[in-house]
């Protein structure tokens, strides 16, 4: 339903020269949550099952917390969404990707991390939730001047 509503809104937005901010869906309560638990609750996730089928490819050490590359692939059949939670950030939910017909459950993005922390990825498939984590250490490079 949400998908349909968004598709309709998207079509409407495309008709306008400039899409209106109020038309876009953005989950304020989930993105405004200050703990990983509240963030997951905000996107309707409770007790996700650990899964090795979610592959998080990221360097173990990030030279700069402002740009931390993360590549995510879900090998769980029927994956319809992937959420990225940065457990120690002030607002832990970083992104949520919904994949429609034709899209592969894969994304690569760069995020900001305040400090060394776990990155949690939650995938939704067939009405269930699965999760995996990976620790990334944040350090400083260069002259430090």
């Amino acid at each position, binding site marked *: 339903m949400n998908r349909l509503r968004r598709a309709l809104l998207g079509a409407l937005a495309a008709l306008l020269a400039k899409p209106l901010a109020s038309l876009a869906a953005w989950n304020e309560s989930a993105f405004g949550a200050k703990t990983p638990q509240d963030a997951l609750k905000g996107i309707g996730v409770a007790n996700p099952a650990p899964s090795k089928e979610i592959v998080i490819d990221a360097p173990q050490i990030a030279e700069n917390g402002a740009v931390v590359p993360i590549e995510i692939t879900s090998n769980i059949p029927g994956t319809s969404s992937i959420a990225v939670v940065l457990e120690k950030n002030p607002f832990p939910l970083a992104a949520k990707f919904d994949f429609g017909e034709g899209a592969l459950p894969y994304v690569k993005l760069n995020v900001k991390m305040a400090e060394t922390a776990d990155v949690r990825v939650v995938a939704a498939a067939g009405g269930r939730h699965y999760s995996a984590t990976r620790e990334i250490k944040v*350090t400083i*490079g260069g*002259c430090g*001047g």
Partner: protein
Amino acid sequence: MKLLSLLLLFPLFPVLAQPTPKDVEQVMQRDFHARGQAGMDRVVQDGLQRVCTEAHDQPPAELAKRLEADQMKTIAFPQGSLIGDWKSGERIAQNGRGMQWTDAPGAANGGSCYNCHQLSPKEISFGTIGPSLAGFGAKRGSGPDAQRYVYGKIYNAKAYNACSQMPRLGYSGTLTAQQIKDLVALLLDPGSPVNQ
């Protein structure tokens, strides 16, 4: 005379006319300008800088010895214990600011130590231009001789190695006597993370 023999040791390439030290200084006088606390006086070389430049940092041993003796005379050793506060020393070692045209002239300067040396094994972001100093005090002890050596080396590294790449942190007015004592503590104090 010594300079002359130096020049003979490092002959100029015969094909191209290389600029003389004077030529290079003139270019710098023309192309650089003072900014913030970095005045144009810094473009002019002192004797030691001139010799090290000419010799590509490898002066003949005899000349090096004389330069080192000259530099040793610049070190003002304080009376009493040279061990300060290693916690303050760690902050000074981490701080890479000071003496740049972007730094406020009155502010306390850092020592930039981690830029070139490993000190506390807890810090993974350290440079390797200088030797690792992890465990320095544990290896050398913290008696008066070790204190004096470390204090002097930080105050004027050129007194120990004429063309060292390490700045003369006391002689140049970068660090105060108290700051250098704090760094001595960072290196020698048995409680310092450097010696864990």
